[in-house]
């Protein structure tokens, strides 16, 4: 499974989306369940899936799927595999 697929599966589970709803340009404003508790779940899931801990500032600062990918890329996670 590619890292992109892992991220997609993770965010589909965190925010209880239909897989078809997922897009790499999804933003926080488009997802009702991306609230403060969603931020907590997302941070837990990212640590479980990619082994990278998000600080509270990073987690709350994320506004889109692209932001998550950028944070993970900066830590060496490759998405264009």
């Amino acid at each position: 499974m590619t890292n992109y697929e892992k991220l997609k599966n993770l965010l589909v589970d965190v925010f209880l989306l239909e897989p078809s709803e997922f897009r790499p340009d999804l933003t926080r404003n488009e997802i009702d369940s991306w609230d403060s508790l969603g931020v907590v779940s997302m941070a837990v899931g990212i640590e479980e899936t990619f082994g990278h801990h998000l600080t509270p500032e990073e987690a709350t600062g994320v506004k889109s799927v692209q932001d998550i990918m950028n944070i993970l890329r900066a830590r060496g996670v490759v998405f264009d595999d």
Partner: protein
Amino acid sequence: MTKPLVWDLADLLNADLGKAALWAAPSVRSFATSRLPYPLLEPFSPLTGEMNSLVVIGGGTLIDAAKVWLHEHAPGVRLIAIPSIWGSGAEASPIAVVNQDDQKIICKDQSYLPHARVVWPELAHSIPLDKARAGCGDCWAHALEAFLSPLATAELQVQLAELMTAMLALPLANDSRWFEISAAACACQAQAGVGLIHGIAHTLEIPLRIAQAGMGWGHARLCAIFLWPVMSLNRIASGKWDTLVAHHHLPGDAIMTVLQDLFDAESYRHALPHLAAHWETVLRDPCTRTNSLLVRPRHLAHFETFAAA
């Protein structure tokens, strides 16, 4: 966080409560009215005169209901909470869990925090053993879920590790020391949140009460039953459980043995179809979303195979 005053019975009887009244749960009504000097009111009945303090003796449901009722109908009246059973810790927290449209709603407001909580050890002997054990399960659920919560601070984890060490030394039975444990565990979970056990308990309590009336379903019993399956999932699917437990020098296997002791396979089998039917609601529950492990749709299979095991 502000804490309620902690009184014993003598403190209560000597306190200047002004004009006080009493709400008492049916199970302890005669016990309470024979020992307390306050006039007994029917819960939620309209106030007919001045009242400065309301003394409430009962379980978490009655104490939480009193918090919300006072907030709405008699703000400024002091709430004196006397738990008749341990588990909820409602007497020590600014949280109220109330039923609304067949759902459990969690409300938090600093005004919900009782003015004082009264520890009355004699009440421990009035609790049926099955309810006492379920209350122990509720205490364990609060302590473990707060300890593992992604919102727990390192300082809180140290407090909870000490608390759980004390809990391991207590019998899962009528022992009045659980009153204090319960208040402490609840005060901790009010800071860090809880997890999947509470997500399941909040989601299933009302459907189970409707579908299986007379089987005695309640919050504490659901917590006690789901402790072992949920903590097994957390432990199997994430290394965090063992890492944290080892870091705080807690005996992980001894804890799991306690949780297994509280497990009731027959009740679990009765609850399982409802868990499957309401799984998506469980996933969306605010408590589930602060579980130590990210709870995913596929994790339902763990509970289904747990039953078979």
